């Protein structure tokens, strides 16, 4: 892949960080992706299942086009992309410079294990004497000080937890490859001088620090300290404030005179804290409070030690910074007595429950009580723990907990064959996302999950090890019920380190600690060049995080582009490989003996003989994981002139990343190089039988050799692309997408069927947070209209489209009937939707009954004056969240709050009643719900079974509703009845979908490739969706989605030609019977029947090489490059020959 000039730093390698990084990398920018944790994946590492599929599916984020540039295996195991430098255990510690030219400083935590050398054999773990709680299992299990941060990573390298490590050095000794270096010598050279008049203090500090590997000197007075300092060699001074004779501050002054760079940390009792603070003004770096916490003290010294030596620091320049630091889970232990958490072991948080339920969790996936390992029969989920709570500075809804609790409850049902009773205690069930409502109903109806609208009062000890839950229902009655397990659905918080990050970036934060962003954007901060991505911006589920990560990447890309990012290419062209297509296969094998270790475990001579018998040239190398070892291998392979190469080594995934370099060095396409894992058969603990190890290694190698001998040497072809985009729909989403692409220098055709741009924006005058949609519309439409790269086609319709990604040809029909044909590489469908016309509650019978849009319009035009009103009733979920329109429209609760607050603001005396089912005040909208209640808006909950009734007589409206608290009907006679009727997709979406070969869901919204992982893409490659044509959403949400869609489109448009994968399907036409089973079987829509030429045609870019077509084809007319039948037969023969 060719690279563009320009690079970005992405901080945080969870889902959103990965998405942002991939988005930029696929577009050709260089990305550095860092994470504080020693592994990638963020929260998702710990979660096995996600709703609504109850599968994982994270791998679907990997590139589809140019997929050979990235890893193509389980993303929870690991990940690489040739344009992304991944640095785990790394923090951002400095930012200087300006947007487009930031100088950033990173600090790497030492892992003490060289990942290039660690082969994952676990010898170190067996000797490590330390046991600490394992974060991966949320502390439910233990691990050693040397451990795998994510047990399922591939390749998986051990790391040492420096805080837990006792520095016994055992692991260093047993490591077969010398990969561990505890850096004991470096610490010994670091001398700490402890100055305190009390012997016991000096002694204990000395003991702690020596245990941590440091050299310690002591002084009992200022005078002695200065004397010792004068001898030199001291790196850090720990100095007591209050000492007889010369006090600490004086010592400090003298010491600094002697050694101006000396690092000094004051030690103080509570009484003299002020002096310590003063001391920092005269040069002390920090202070420590007595009595000391040994752990904190050692950590501080380690920190100073690393800082002083500038250990692991690295500086470089990037154009943009994306912050994707994720979120922290609310810790119930941080608040006083949260539902008995930490009092009862059987009260757990959601994340603890996820681990409890996981196959890699403490009980291998069995649902057992943490306290006594008894079988769990009843589980209660308590919602809103740490969310929607003003006392905990959380005037927000965490947005994700309702859905994950339903998922957890549903999985509990599934795992137990319905035996476990699952009850969810909630205030509002916020099922506001696409298909969430149906998911909830499925849980309730098909699985019997109990949903209990209630306030939980307390959790106490119950019978037989159970917990007794006391709660009051919506009618105010108290109940008590026993459960085996109580799961606290803990909300989100800004992650640890947010304070430092905010300070570093100079970005303002909201009162609850989240980064502030600009109006109508979730990713742009006030600080140019610094963007926030994913849940770090606050309260998002995976799907929204992925969308928003795309939007952040888009913002960064726009900045990099404006800075000349795509003007020049920096990397070399595709390397020139030797043409070996006409040469008979000649395989050379380079086998790594792992510095002799492997040669002892197996008979390499016999293995070499066996391979030579198959016609291979065999070379032995010492240690291929080192630079020298690999260079040596390259040298012999170059000389051998073989045209296929087999590497026998450990950890094939590590080599996968090096194959391109290796290929370049020996002039062979990486497709013709194969890595076979010969290390695993000889892992410790697998027996010492040399003959068996030899046989297994020979089997692995001869299989790989057979595959290489049979491989088709034709390199994958590159395909030219049409670098032009078609955007259908001229609302805010379509305009945003068109502008985004045009600003990157590509031509865009924007198609709008009405006579003007703007869509729904024409009917909106205010947002809940006080911004003006009209101004947004004006600015955006003006920008679109004057943009030299955008051709706007008003009153035009798409009537036909054919072709495939990179080469679509689409026909438009203009108002007069004139046709026009456009060639384009990508298409974005942004055809939107509109407010539904209510069919119920007397709408249309009386002028006093209006929709939310109509109310807003009438208020704006002055047709309704708030001052004239005495009473207004609003009904939520009109025609929504029931079949056939069984989805939440997501914007109506916000609209109701907005209009209610507006009325109250302009006339505090007006009575406003909102009749609702669940207030969908998700995320930061919750604060407006709070505001509305404070302003006196009355909220009355109703059930679907007992909906409000509306009667009209002589232009007057009467609304009758059941008040759940009073348990009787109330009658209201409002001046206005406002119906929140929700959103329906534009008519014509389904027709347009048909034209582009994509689909709509049963509600008529676009059906994305995958709800969570590919939310803006269709299964059909090169076609994207955004805005409310995809699902109901707010203006800002629609714009974020449009940006995400443009970013995906840019990853295709940014190239003149693109490569299909090296493994793609082919058709042998002479054998093909045209049964078309392969077309049905292809999950990517990459095959079609060309009726004219009577052949099956493959779209090489869309084909992902999955092989479903080859499997379904009975006579191998459809085949997969690199996996032909003959090849597989000989591989099987080779494997079986050794083992049976």
């Amino acid at each position: 892949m060719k690279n563009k000039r320009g690079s970005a730093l992405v901080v945080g390698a969870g889902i959103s960080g990965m998405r942002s990084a991939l988005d930029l990398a696929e577009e050709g920018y260089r990305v550095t992706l860092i994470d504080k944790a020693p592994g990638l994946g963020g929260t998702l590492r710990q979660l096995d299942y996600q709703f609504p599929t109850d599968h994982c599916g994270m791998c679907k984020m990997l590139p589809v086009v140019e997929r050979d540039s990235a890893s193509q295996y389980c993303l929870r195991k690991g990940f690489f992309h040739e344009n992304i430098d991944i640095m785990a255990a790394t923090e951002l510690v400095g930012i200087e410079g300006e947007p487009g030219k930031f100088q950033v400083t990173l600090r790497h935590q030492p892992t003490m294990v060289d990942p290039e050398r660690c082969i994952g054999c676990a010898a170190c773990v067996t000797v490590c004497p330390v046991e600490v709680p394992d974060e991966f299992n949320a502390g439910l299990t233990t691990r050693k000080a040397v451990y795998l941060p994510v047990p399922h990573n591939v390749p998986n390298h051990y790391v040492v937890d420096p805080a837990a490590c006792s520095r016994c050095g055992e692991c260093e000794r047993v490591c077969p490859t010398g990969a561990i270096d505890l850096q004991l010598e470096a610490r010994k050279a670091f001398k700490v001088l402890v100055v305190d008049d009390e012997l016991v203090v000096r002694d204990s500090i000395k003991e702690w620090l020596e245990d941590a590997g440091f050299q310690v000197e002591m002084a009992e007075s200022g005078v002695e300290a200065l004397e010792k300092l004068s001898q030199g060699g001291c790196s850090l001074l720990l100095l007591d404030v209050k000492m007889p004779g010369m006090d600490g501050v004086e010592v400090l002054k003298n010491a600094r005179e002697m050694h101006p760079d000396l690092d000094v940390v004051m030690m103080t009792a509570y009484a003299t804290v002020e002096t310590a603070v003063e001391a920092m003004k005269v040069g002390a770096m920090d202070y420590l409070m007595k009595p000391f916490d040994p752990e904190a003290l050692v950590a501080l010294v380690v920190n100073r030690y690393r800082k002083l030596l500038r250990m692991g620091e690295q500086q470089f320049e990037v154009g943009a910074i994306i912050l994707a630091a994720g979120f922290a889970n609310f810790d119930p232990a941080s608040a006083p007595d949260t539902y008995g958490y930490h009092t009862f072991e059987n009260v757990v948080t959601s994340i603890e429950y996820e681990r409890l339920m996981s196959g890699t969790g403490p009980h291998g996936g069995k649902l057992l009580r943490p306290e006594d390992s008894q079988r769990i029969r009843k589980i209660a989920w308590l919602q809103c723990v740490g969310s929607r709570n003003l006392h905990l500075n959380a005037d927000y809804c965490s947005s994700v907990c309702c859905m994950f609790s339903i998922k957890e409850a549903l999985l509990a049902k599934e795992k137990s064959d319905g035996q476990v009773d699952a009850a969810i205690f909630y205030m509002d069930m916020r099922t506001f996302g696409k298909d969430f409502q149906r998911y909830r109903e499925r849980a309730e109806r098909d699985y019997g999950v109990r949903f209990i609208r209630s306030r939980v009062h307390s959790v106490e000890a119950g019978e037989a090890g159970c917990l007794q839950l006391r709660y009051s229902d919506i009618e105010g009655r108290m109940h008590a019920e026993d459960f085996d397990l109580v799961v606290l659905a803990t909300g989100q918080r800004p992650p640890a380190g947010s304070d430092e990050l905010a300070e570093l970036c100079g970005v303002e934060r909201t009162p609850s600690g989240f980064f502030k962003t600009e109006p109508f954007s979730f990713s742009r901060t006030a600080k140019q060049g610094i963007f926030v991505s994913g849940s770090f911006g606050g309260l998002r589920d995976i799907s929204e995080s992925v969308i928003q990560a795309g939007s952040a990447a888009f913002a960064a890309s726009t900045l990099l582009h404006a800075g000349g990012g795509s003007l020049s290419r920096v990397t070399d062209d595709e390397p020139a490989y030797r043409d070996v297509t006409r040469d008979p296969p000649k395989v050379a094998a380079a086998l790594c003996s792992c510095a002799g270790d492997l040669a002892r475990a197996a008979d390499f001579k016999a293995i070499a003989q066996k391979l030579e018998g198959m016609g291979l040239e065999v070379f032995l190398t010492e240690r291929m994981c080192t630079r020298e070892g690999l260079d040596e291998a390259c040298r012999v392979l170059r000389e051998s002139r073989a045209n296929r190469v087999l590497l026998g080594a450990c950890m094939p995934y590590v080599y996968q990343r090096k194959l391109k370099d290796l290929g370049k060095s020996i002039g062979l396409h990486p497709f013709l190089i194969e890595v076979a894992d010969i290390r695993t058969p000889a892992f410790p603990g697998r027996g010492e039988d040399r003959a068996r190890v030899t046989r297994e290694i020979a089997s692995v190698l001869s299989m790989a050799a057979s595959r290489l001998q049979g491989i088709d040497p034709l390199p994958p072809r590159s395909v030219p692309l049409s670098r032009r985009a078609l955007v259908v729909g001229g609302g805010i989403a379509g305009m945003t997408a068109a502008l985004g692409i045009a600003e990157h220098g590509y031509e865009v055709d924007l198609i709008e069927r009405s006579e003007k741009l703007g869509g729904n924006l024409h009917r909106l005058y205010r947002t809940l947070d006080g911004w003006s949609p009209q101004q947004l519309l004006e600015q955006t439409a003006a920008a679109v209209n004057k943009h030299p790269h955008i051709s706007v086609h008003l009153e035009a319709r798409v009537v036909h489209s054919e072709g495939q990604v990179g080469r679509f040809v689409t026909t438009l029909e203009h108002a007069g009937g004139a046709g026009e044909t456009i060639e384009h590489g990508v298409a974005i469908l942004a055809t939107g939707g509109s407010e539904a016309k209510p069919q119920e509650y007397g709408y249309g019978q009386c002028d006093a009954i209006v929709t939310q849009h109509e109310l807003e319009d009438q208020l704006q035009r002055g047709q309704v004056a708030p001052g004239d009103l005495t009473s207004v009733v609003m009904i939520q979920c009109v025609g929504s969240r029931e079949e056939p329109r069984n989805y939440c429209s997501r914007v109506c609760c916000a609209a109701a709050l907005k209009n209610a607050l507006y009325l109250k603001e302009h006339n505090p005396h007006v009575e406003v009643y909102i009749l609702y089912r669940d207030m969908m005040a998700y995320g930061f909208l919750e604060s407006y719900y709070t505001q509305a209640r404070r302003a006196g808006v009355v909220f009355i909950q109703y059930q679907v079974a007992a909906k409000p009734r509306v009667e009209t007589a002589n232009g007057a409206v009467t609304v009758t509703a059941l008040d759940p608290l009073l348990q009787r009907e109330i009658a209201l006679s409002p001046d206005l009845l406002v119906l929140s009727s929700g959103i329906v997709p534009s008519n014509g979406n389904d027709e347009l979908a048909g034209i582009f070969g994509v689909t709509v869901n049963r509600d008529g919204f676009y059906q994305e490739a995958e709800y969570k992982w590919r939310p803006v893409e269709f299964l059909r490659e090169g076609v994207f969706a955004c805005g409310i044509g995809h699902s109901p959403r707010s203006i800002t949400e629609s714009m974020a989605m449009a940006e995400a869609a443009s970013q995906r489109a840019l990853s295709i448009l940014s190239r003149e030609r693109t490569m299909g994968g090296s493994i793609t399907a082919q058709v042998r036409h002479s054998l093909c019977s045209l049964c078309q089973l392969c077309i049905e079987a292809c999950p990517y829509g990459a095959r079609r029947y060309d009726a004219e030429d009577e052949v099956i045609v493959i779209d090489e870019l869309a084909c992902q090489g999955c092989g479903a077509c080859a499997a379904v084809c009975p006579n191998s007319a459809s085949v997969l490059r690199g996996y032909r039948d003959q090849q597989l037969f000989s591989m099987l023969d080779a494997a079986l020959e050794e083992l049976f």
Partner: protein
Amino acid sequence: MARTAAIEVTEGNPVKALQEFFRTLLERGKIEALLVARHLPVRNAVMPTLVTDPQQLAGADPLAPVFPINAAKVVSRLTRKPFEGRVAVVLRPCEIRAFIELVKLKQGRREQLIIIGMDCLGAYGNVDYLRFAAAAGDGSSATLDFIRNALEGRGTAFEDFDITTACKACEHFVAESADLSFELLGATLGEGLPLQANTPLGEALLGELGLASTREPAGRKEAVLDLLAQRTAYRDRMFAETAAATSDLDKLMSYLGHCVNCYNCRVACPVCYCRECVFTTDVFDHEPAQFLRWARKKGALKMPTDTVFYHLTRLAHMSTACVGCGQCSNACPNHVPVMELFRTIAAGTQRAFDYEAGRSVEEEPPLSTFREKEFFEVTGGKD
């Protein structure tokens, strides 16, 4: 929808009645041509014949107890692409079912086709039929003898043979998917031969021909159930015996021991639709050295190789489409009981996918559909 008309039968000869009916179709321009089994001038040969001239219908005899090939194959060749006008094809139920499978595999089209079926009383093996016909003197008398014996309870056995095992085990002897079908079972031929319309197309045709409706013969239901019970019982015995005879790899190798890789079975198989079988492509062009390696490994190698592999592959590919017509066994020169094996395995694979080969064009072939929740007993509901 089902509507029944009666075709007049003269001289107690239903074959003549059929010929008359076909002649009407051709003469009244309802069809361009008719594909029907017909006695050839060659002695006792009965072959599917495409007839356009009504005069040539004299030898047409779809009731002859023989079908040397499964005619679905030729119908597929006739209908792969659109043509002028409409053609009627007269097929046995197993031929219709095979054709339905081929339509799903895009190897034929049902449009422009009128499918005429009949209750199938079974057929003799190709070689046996020659003896049967010779004994009767000529093909036409042989057919009448066969029908009378079968319908009047005298059975179908002749000398030392009977109809094929496939026919004896066949429970699909009624042509349910045909547009029109002649219902021999339970009919009193003197009162006419019932012709049933199973589809709107068939019904419309009956209307156009002005054939009067009649009621289903009183004895039909019972006759059908009787035959079904016989056939099913025979079939289940066959399944049990075959399963026992092939219960492990050694037994299977011995079961297929006489196979010589002539591939006649797959040529005869109506649903084996590949233009070229994978076993005759380069995929199985083993290197000469490979044979030696295999031989060396066990000390001896039976040649030709890949015989069991061939049958297993064909089972994997085609058992979900197998209609049990028995042409594979009919074609085998070495009397390998291929049909028995295929039907036994097919019963399992089709049950696994809740699929029945030939039942309906609407039913998608199992491997072309993806169902998220299937094989619960294997996956335990997790995937």
